[in-house]
């Protein structure tokens, strides 16, 4: 079932795995969030010393999936959309960015968030919708954003961030900020109005944007083959004069290189790039989904062989820089960090009951003031309970 991964147009060199790096050792940054290790902005290969942190971040994302799925079953969080299978794509893709670049995520971009320095506590604050949540408990789990990390807050409607990212890129260019914007979206999102508008505006205005399409094979129950009759999703760039590339999203090197090249191209003024990152959604669409209804175990098993985490681990072990023992220890460490964050954040109280009447506008209108007052009275008299 493995789709053939091929390179189209624009990027001449092929994305084969680079020779195993030598003379470096895995170095993990100690806190839960790996903190971006700066590499020369022009480098198109992952710096050897970054592979460790990248691997750790991927493992952290995977472990978060496990924990959150369990917590959702226990009724401790309301919803969760796992990233499993897309860790290499997201972590390597985000790793190739500059912290000043603007990320426009969908709802499955946990790996990206971790690279941007979103902390475990911040994530769980959001999942619980507690009083520390930067989103003030207004969004479902997985829908978060942090302005200071240039990680825009996502929404549920599919695709809307794509054209927004183009707008932001034009704004950045107008301000002469040397950054790119990068919307993350799925194969399903290529059918959205906003993809069409985003790619078209991107092409016409030569926006410094990287369209990062994670083709994970499925849009809930719809397979990629029924989403569009295009040969590849990268091919869609042709419709907009935007170069398209296909990369194997289970290979951190390919993804990193593609983003770096697209970034350089965007900053040089040569316009946007559409990157189709071929991955597979190993888990369910979300905790509301039962993938057994629409796909076979055999297909999943086939893709599990490409598991990006196993693949990078293998590469590291092959290179003599890593061992199963160390891996087990790392996993334990990561899980402990998660547990600690859960304990801390679950103890934080719920959002202020009156808070949901804020932020409709910059300042509350008289009408909202009045409604807030009514709510206060209803809380007071016990008509409603938080």
């Amino acid at each position, binding site marked *: 079932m493995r789709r053939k991964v091929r390179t189209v147009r624009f990027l001449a060199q092929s994305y084969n795995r680079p020779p195993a790096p030598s003379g470096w050792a895995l170095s993990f940054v100690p806190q839960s969030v790996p903190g971006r290790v700066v590499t020369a902005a022009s480098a198109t290969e992952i710096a050897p010393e970054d592979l460790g942190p990248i691997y750790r971040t991927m493992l952290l994302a995977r472990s978060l999936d496990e924990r959150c799925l369990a917590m959702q079953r226990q009724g401790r969080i309301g919803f969760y959309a796992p990233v499993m299978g897309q860790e290499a794509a997201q972590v390597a893709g985000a790793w190739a960015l500059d912290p000043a670049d603007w990320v426009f995520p969908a709802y499955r971009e946990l790996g990206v968030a971790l690279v941007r320095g979103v902390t475990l506590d911040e994530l769980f604050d959001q999942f619980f919708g507690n009083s520390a*949540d930067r989103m003030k408990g207004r969004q479902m789990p997985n829908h978060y954003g942090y302005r200071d990390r240039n990680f825009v807050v996502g929404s549920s409607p599919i695709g809307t961030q794509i054209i927004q990212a183009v707008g932001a890129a034009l704004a950045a260019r107008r301000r002469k900020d040397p950054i790119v914007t990068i919307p993350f979206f799925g194969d399903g999102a290529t059918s959205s109005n906003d993809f069409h508008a985003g790619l078209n505006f991107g092409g016409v205005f030569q926006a410094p944007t990287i369209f990062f399409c994670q083709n994970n094979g499925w849009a809930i129950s719809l397979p990629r083959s029924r989403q569009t009759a295009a040969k590849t999703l990268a091919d869609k760039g042709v419709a907009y004069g935007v170069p398209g590339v296909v990369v194997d999203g289970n290979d951190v090197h390919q993804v990193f290189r593609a983003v770096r090249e697209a970034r350089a191209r965007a900053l040089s003024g040569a316009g946007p790039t559409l990157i189709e990152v071929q991955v597979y959604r190993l888990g369910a669409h979300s905790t509301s989904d039962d993938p057994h209804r629409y796909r076979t175990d055999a297909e999943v098993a086939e893709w599990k062989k490409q598991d990006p985490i196993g693949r990078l681990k293998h590469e590291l072990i092959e290179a003599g820089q890593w061992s199963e023992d160390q891996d087990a220890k790392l996993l334990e460490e990561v899980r402990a960090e998660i547990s600690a964050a859960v304990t801390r954040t679950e103890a934080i109280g719920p*959002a202020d009951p009156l808070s*949901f009447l804020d932020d409709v506008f910059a300042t509350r209108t008289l009408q909202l003031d009045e409604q807030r007052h009514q709510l206060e009275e209803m809380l007071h008299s016990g*008509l409603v309970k*938080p």
Partner: protein
Amino acid sequence: MTEVTLVQAVNRALRTAMSADPEVLLLGEDIGVNGGVFRATEGLLKDFGADRVIDTPLSETGIVGAAVGMALYGLKPVAEIQFLDFIYPGFDQIVSELAKFRYRSGGQYPCHVVIRSPYGGGIKGGLYHSQSTEAYFAHTAGLKVVVPSTPADAYGLLLSSIFDPDPVIFLEPKRIYRTVTGEVPEGDQRVPIGRARTVREGTDVSVFAYGAMIPPATEACQAAEADGVSAELIDLRTLVPLDAGAVLASVEKTGRAVIVHEAARFCGYGAEIAAILAEKAFFSLKAPIHRVTGFDTPFPYALENLYLPNAARIRQAIVDTVRAG
């Protein structure tokens, strides 16, 4: 007659309509092999084939636009929009095309389309899986808007909608998809569009509600008895065309009105009911018209139970209204 849930009643109505008329077909996201994310179309692909239960790409523009085209040609498509919150990419096709085709063509091109969509809060869906924006559609001339609150109405009204010659926006209160059960008939037994349902009779105040607000409104009316208040509860059921006769008759009797909906208040559907009463039942009215609604904010997540009207708030409004005059 069998006892089913509201979502099962929807499923049965689809099955009945498809069995009765080969020109009825379904299209939408994840409605085929997956049976719909709420299972409203469960089993239909197997029984009616991929030609009539069409899994579409992720495009509401496409779903509505294709349904319009099918209807122009003469079929009776029933489109599912996965959540009402996601209908807006198809909004242009709905308000510019679906609603206006018959009119602009001088009657040559009816648009026999039903758009079904789960709507409303109470399932911890946050901003984008909870909205009640029925007012957008009710304000759009050319669309009928139907909202059942019981399995029997879901069944009978969906059948009426599917065989209605006009476009119908059929909003399914997903919060009570599985919490409300009831009997539904077999076969093509329809509930007419355009008639409200009196849930309970009363003499002191009229309560108007629909959809998922019917259970708390019922509870509130019962509870108000303890306050010595006799409340009449009307389930509007079809928002367009509104059963204005039933609304006016009730208020002419009771002299008071409480209007309940979960949508935001400002320019919500309840405003129209209030406006009609203030114009046509003015001299019957003894007290201010009270609206119990969602707040004028986007739909929140963690605090949704504060946002949504509940039985206690409705009861208070009933009592306050009766005490006011």
